[in-house]
């Protein structure tokens, strides 16, 4: 007697940086089939914007574009993180479900944190993994976690290497290579081997050890910070100009904060001289990290957020105060689907030029600028 073979569920999740690789491991580990949303392109953003409310934030629009393209390639279940209480992000899943249903798509939306609690995702995941033993679910989650950590480690390495490498673009190529391999690895041991291999490869990248690159910290709204298509690839552009980029925001750090909320509060507390309460989402972190950067001799800060993002618009005003008080230059960018690349490029270039000149002139004329309030900038060089 032949049993009916159940077709695996076809599940998709929107892009965010390279993390879709990790989510693929989770989804496949649950016995579902992963439908990779096609890479984000102009078409994705146009599709998403066309069907979104005009003044909703950019992440919503790109997510929606990802969903539409994934549904067109056969997805049945859409995953959305979403946590109520943070900002509009808490309602992404519900609103996107309504819009897509109105468009006539047939699917199921699963919001991982629908109840607004850290551990809600376990029940959400179980609803996907019908009958899959809990141990397998845990194993899949662990594997996904390891992949997230892998991605964050290597990306952060590349952010630094870009400024020092002699053969420009080498570290980016290595990263792409190892990420391709990562998406095929299916065991913790495999990841650990790949990590060793990748680290070794990064060690062989020839670097200019005499280089004293400008260092820029990146803060802001999580999606726009982590998705290069949303921020017009700011990190790589800076890297190409020979800037070392420091980005505290990553999925690993967000997971860490979710499990240990006191770590998150610790960063917000860094900015206590400027703001003493949460602004929603990670806006207090933008301020906390900027204060931290000012005290650790980072040359400048770039603040990225989606146009109409309430929490970050609030932090923008406060960051102006931080910049003046602590003497650290902050450049703000708000992104929408209309953002022109030329304007962003010019401002980035001018910002980097400014920081470079600031350094050289401050060291050259050190005796004359003894009274300068930001001596921090001189000993950094």
């Amino acid at each position, binding site marked *: 007697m032949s049993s009916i073979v159940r077709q695996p569920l076809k599940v998709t999740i929107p892009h965010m940086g390279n993390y879709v690789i990790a989510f693929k491991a989770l989804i496949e580990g649950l016995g579902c089939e992963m439908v990779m949303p096609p890479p984000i392109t*102009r078409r994705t953003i146009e599709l998403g914007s066309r069907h979104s409310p005009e003044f909703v934030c950019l992440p919503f629009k790109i997510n929606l574009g990802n969903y539409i393209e994934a549904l067109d390639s056969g997805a049945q279940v859409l995953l959305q993180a979403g946590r109520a209480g943070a900002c509009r992000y808490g309602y992404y899943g519900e609103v996107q479900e309504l819009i897509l249903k109105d468009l006539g798509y047939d699917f199921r939306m699963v919001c991982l944190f629908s109840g607004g609690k850290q551990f809600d995702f376990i029940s959400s995941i179980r609803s996907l993994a019908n009958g899959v033993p809990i141990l397998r679910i845990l194993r899949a989650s662990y594997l996904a976690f390891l992949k997230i950590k892998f991605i964050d480690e290597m990306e952060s390495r590349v952010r630094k290497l870009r400024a020092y490498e002699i053969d420009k673009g080498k570290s980016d190529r290595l990263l792409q290579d190892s990420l391709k391999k990562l998406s095929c690895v299916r065991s913790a041991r495999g990841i650990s081997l790949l990590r060793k291999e990748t680290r070794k490869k990064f060690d062989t990248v020839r670097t200019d050890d005499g280089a004293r690159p400008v260092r820029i910290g990146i803060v802001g709204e999580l999606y726009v910070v982590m998705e290069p298509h949303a921020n017009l690839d700011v990190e790589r552009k800076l890297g190409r100009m020979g800037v070392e980029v420091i980005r505290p925001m990553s999925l690993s750090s967000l997971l860490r904060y979710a499990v240990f909320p006191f770590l998150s509060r610790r960063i917000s507390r860094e900015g206590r001289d400027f703001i003493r309460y949460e602004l929603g989402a990670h806006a207090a972190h933008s301020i906390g990290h900027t204060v931290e950067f000012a005290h650790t001799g980072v040359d400048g800060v770039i603040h990225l957020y989606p146009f109409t993002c309430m929490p970050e618009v609030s932090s923008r005003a406060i960051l102006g105060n931080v910049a003046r008080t602590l003497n650290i230059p902050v450049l703000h960018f708000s992104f929408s689907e209309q953002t022109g690349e030329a304007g962003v490029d010019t401002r980035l270039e001018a910002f980097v030029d400014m920081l470079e000149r*600031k350094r050289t002139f401050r060291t050259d004329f050190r005796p004359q600028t003894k009274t300068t309030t930001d001596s921090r900038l001189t000993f950094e060089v």
Partner: protein
Amino acid sequence: MKTFLGIDVGSISTNLAIVNEQKSVVDKLYLRTEGNPITAIQQGLLQLERVEISGVGTTGSARRLAGVVAGADVVKTEIIAHAVAAQHFVPDVRTIIEIGGQDSKIIILREGVVVDFAMNSICAAGCGAFLDHQANRLRIPIQDFGCLALNSKHEVNIAGRCTVFAESDMIHKQQMGHCREDIVSGLCSAIVRNYLNNVGKGKEINAPIVFQGGVAANAGVRRAFEKELGAEIIVPEHFAVMGAIGAAILALENNPAKTGFKGFDVADKSFLTSSFVCDDCPNLCEIIVIKEEGKITARWGSRCGKWNV
């Protein structure tokens, strides 16, 4: 004595300047870009004094293109170029107001170093192009536009938030029977208010203040700034070509061993630009190709870097 060339190609004007080692201006030129930056650069090179050039710097929104055409040694943004030039003429400058054809910026300097800047992000209200358009509409030569404002006795209030609203408000005031002087004066104040509320928002504007860019020629706007800021506004002698002077000074600072300058004969060469859409992926990037005498000298515009030369 060594001389250095600076080229600033903006949306409305193309400026060239030659400076010597003492950073004094040997020759300068202010041309209209008229939508054709390459021809403007070639025209400029034809008209400039033919001295030996030891370095070239380009700036402005077409800095890359200009860099390819002239063979630049340094390509820098307008922010740095304007700051460097202003500092040369007013060494202790702390604020630079720059209003050009289609953009405006503020640059804050402290102890001789640029510490902050902002550029207009949303709209071009208050820029040269708008003033030009209004002068044209009122049939007042642009040179006299600002002086007219100085004759005003009772300035009218113009909504300056947006060029479209400003224009309809100006027409409204004119139909109500206000005289031209008062309307033009009101426009100058609206532009200054708009600038300070947009570009200058949140910036500490301290004297000495230098006002440069094409709009600095406008006496009405100058007076409106002085009134609003309560400080003296310094307009440097070469206010219209400060970007080009800055680019030339940057070339001097860079002092290349051998300049990439292609010579004044570039004016006779044929430069052709063309573009195509790369449809290898849905990004559909527009690729720009620049051909010098039929040979591809530069190509850019792709996100992935595929076509770059």
